[in-house]
């Protein structure tokens, strides 16, 4: 396809999308509140700007390396912002501030769990990952092992994680947009899917990264404004804010509540969050977008700073919502309150941050935060889809099917096709799961990432005796244990399937499934006496030197 043709198709698709959006917007405006016009205008500005970036990025995306890693030329600061953007999804912005709003201190416990994986990633994973890999984490896992089985397993782990995550994001997106913009659920889901396909297929990692950076900046600015507005109300005294909040909701919101009830659950949740983060394919992929290990380290440093700051903001925002939104007649769900009592807010507790934005900044700022929430979903699904598409094109197509004999243009084409397919799957799944209880989905994604992806990746870097047989059996064992324990655990067995009691009593399976994976990998590796296993163990030394020094590692592409 020539560049001109591609550009023409691109412009055509942009206009098409805007037309779909415009018609949906008018329809929505009639049925829902008029004040959402400012949200729609601001969202259109965001979409226009990001499509402009995509157009710019498309012209610079000439090879598979550009497509997967933005040519390896992203700086540590930019990548830190993009990683933070991947992590600060709409679910964590609205979900954690909603959790703080409902349960106070428990929201902080939850966000700390999400943060502490980052230092571990820096100390253990980031550098060898950058030095050994090219496009996907399977590059590292299969560095000295047999390509076919390891790539298939790693790609399966990646695609499963990505699709589960996509379902959660799409369903959240549909509901949020329905509520904020007054669009139909299906229109909202389709819109997210189509825009995401545009960003990724045309702009690759370069566009995806910049969309993520811009969104992270907007989200951090908006959240900072809200937190400062809340604190200014109390002369920047936390004591005064907490005193007022406890007067409204009781002193329990200052104490740990029911989030972690017993030590097994506490440890299991901690393991899932920590190792799960280090096994998320869309996060790991970001380390290949920087030029070297130095920039990779800087990216984690900045990302940890941004994410930590963001969680402190969501904590203040949650408390701000308690004092300004809770029991405020303007945001009260009158119909629901009449039946159930307890002063529920419109749209449920996940809307606490959105209502607070209105309370502190009026219609205009509500529009801004709504547009940012939508932008957040778009940016996160784009990153996810790119990671899933890379697993299909780089691991399955180029490395397994074609045994590495494939030219870069062909591989890029396959990943674009994979992106379109994943986008369509995401739209269909998003619509299918509309009415389902999807609380288990993100937990399952983290459990798979922690139990299948992480142990193989970690041991391939640090354990000489790892063999292909060990990785395949142990990794599969971890994966199967995680999936089965989630199914027979409380979230699926009781809440979803309606059984009276769970067969497996804990909500988080990671403690058991991660252990199963490590023990399985250990056992099937040390009992592997094949000639192949011996060669794999002998290859460890050269791999370790490269992982430590970066000698022979992928550099940035020359532009």
């Amino acid at each position, binding site marked *: 396809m020539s560049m001109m043709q591609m550009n023409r198709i691109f412009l055509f698709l942009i206009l098409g999308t805007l037309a779909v959006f415009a018609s949906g917007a008018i329809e929505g405006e009639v049925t829902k509140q008029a004040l959402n016009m400012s949200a729609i205008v601001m969202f259109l500005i965001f979409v226009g700007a990001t499509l402009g970036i995509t157009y710019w990025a498309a012209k610079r995306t000439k090879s598979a390396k550009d497509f997967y890693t933005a040519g390896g030329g992203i700086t540590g600061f930019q990548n830190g912002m993009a990683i933070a953007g991947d992590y600060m999804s709409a679910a964590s912005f609205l979900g954690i501030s909603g959790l703080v709003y409902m349960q106070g*201190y428990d929201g*902080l*416990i939850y*966000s*700390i*769990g999400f*943060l*502490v994986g*980052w*230092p*571990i990633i*820096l*100390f*253990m994973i980031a*550098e060898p990952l950058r030095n050994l890999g090219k496009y996907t984490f399977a590059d590292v896992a299969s560095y000295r092992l047999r390509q076919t089985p390891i790539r298939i397993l790693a790609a399966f782990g990646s695609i499963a994680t990505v699709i589960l995550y996509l379902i959660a994001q799409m369903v959240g997106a549909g509901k949020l947009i329905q509520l904020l913009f007054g669009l139909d659920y299906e229109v909202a889901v389709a819109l997210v899917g189509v825009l995401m396909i545009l960003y990724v297929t045309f702009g690759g990692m370069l566009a995806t990264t910049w969309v993520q950076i811009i969104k992270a900046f907007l989200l951090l600015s908006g959240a900072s404004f809200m937190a400062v507005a809340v604190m200014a109300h109390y002369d920047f005294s*936390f*004591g005064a804010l*907490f*005193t007022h909040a*406890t007067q409204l909701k009781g*002193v329990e919101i*200052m*104490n*740990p*509540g029911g989030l*972690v*009830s*017993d*030590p097994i*659950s*506490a*440890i299991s*949740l*901690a393991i899932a969050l920590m190792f799960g983060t280090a096994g998320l394919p869309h996060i790991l992929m970001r380390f290949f977008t920087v030029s070297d290990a*130095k920039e990779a*380290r*800087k990216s*984690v*440093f900045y990302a*940890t*700073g941004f994410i*930590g700051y963001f*969680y*402190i903001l969501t904590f203040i925002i949650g408390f701000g919502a308690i004092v300004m939104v809770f029991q405020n007649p303007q945001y009260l769900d009158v119909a629901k309150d009449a039946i159930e009592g307890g002063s529920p807010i419109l749209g449920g507790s996940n809307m606490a941050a959105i209502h607070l934005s209105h309370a502190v900044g009026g219609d205009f700022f509500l529009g801004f935060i709504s547009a940012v929430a939508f932008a957040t979903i778009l940016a996160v699904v784009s990153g996810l889809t790119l990671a899933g598409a890379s697993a299909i094109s780089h691991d399955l197509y180029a490395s397994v099917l074609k045994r590495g004999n494939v030219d870069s243009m062909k591989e890029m084409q396959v990943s674009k096709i994979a992106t379109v397919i994943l986008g369509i799957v995401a739209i269909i799944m998003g619509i299918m799961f509309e009415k389902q209880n999807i609380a288990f989905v993100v937990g399952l994604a983290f459990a798979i990432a922690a139990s299948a992806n992480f142990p193989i990746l970690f041991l391939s870097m640090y354990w000489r005796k790892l063999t292909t047989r060990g990785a395949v059996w142990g990794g599969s064992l971890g994966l199967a244990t995680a999936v089965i324990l989630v199914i027979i655990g409380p979230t699926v067995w009781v809440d979803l399937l309606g059984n009276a009691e769970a067969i497996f009593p804990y909500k988080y399976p990671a403690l058991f499934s991660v252990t199963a994976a490590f023990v399985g990998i250990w056992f099937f590796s040390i009992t592997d006496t094949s000639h192949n296993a011996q060669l794999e163990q002998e290859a460890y*030394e*050269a791999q370790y*030197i*490269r992982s*430590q*020094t*970066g*000698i*022979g590692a992928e550099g940035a592409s020359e532009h």
Partner: protein
Amino acid sequence: MNKELVDKIKNNPDYQELVSKRSSFSLKLTAAMLVVYFTFILTIAFDPSFLGTPLSADSVTSIGIPVGIAVIIFAFVLTGIYTVRANGEFDDLNNKIKNSIKED
């Protein structure tokens, strides 16, 4: 990487110094993070009321709030400490190793 080069780097004293220093540094920092986090989360699991204790008699703010914020800041500071040392001292050593290969 061929066998000859592997042996050469392996026997390079700078390489041995880099690996031993960095491994022990990463392990110490990892241990510090794990100890702090698991102390925090297990305190909640075994004795939830402890973090709920008010800071002072006339305050509603619980001990858990500054402790939680401190864990977040601790995690960030650790990444800073590692990045400064790795991007300085360790990368200098690493460059010496890389230059020693180029020389021949």
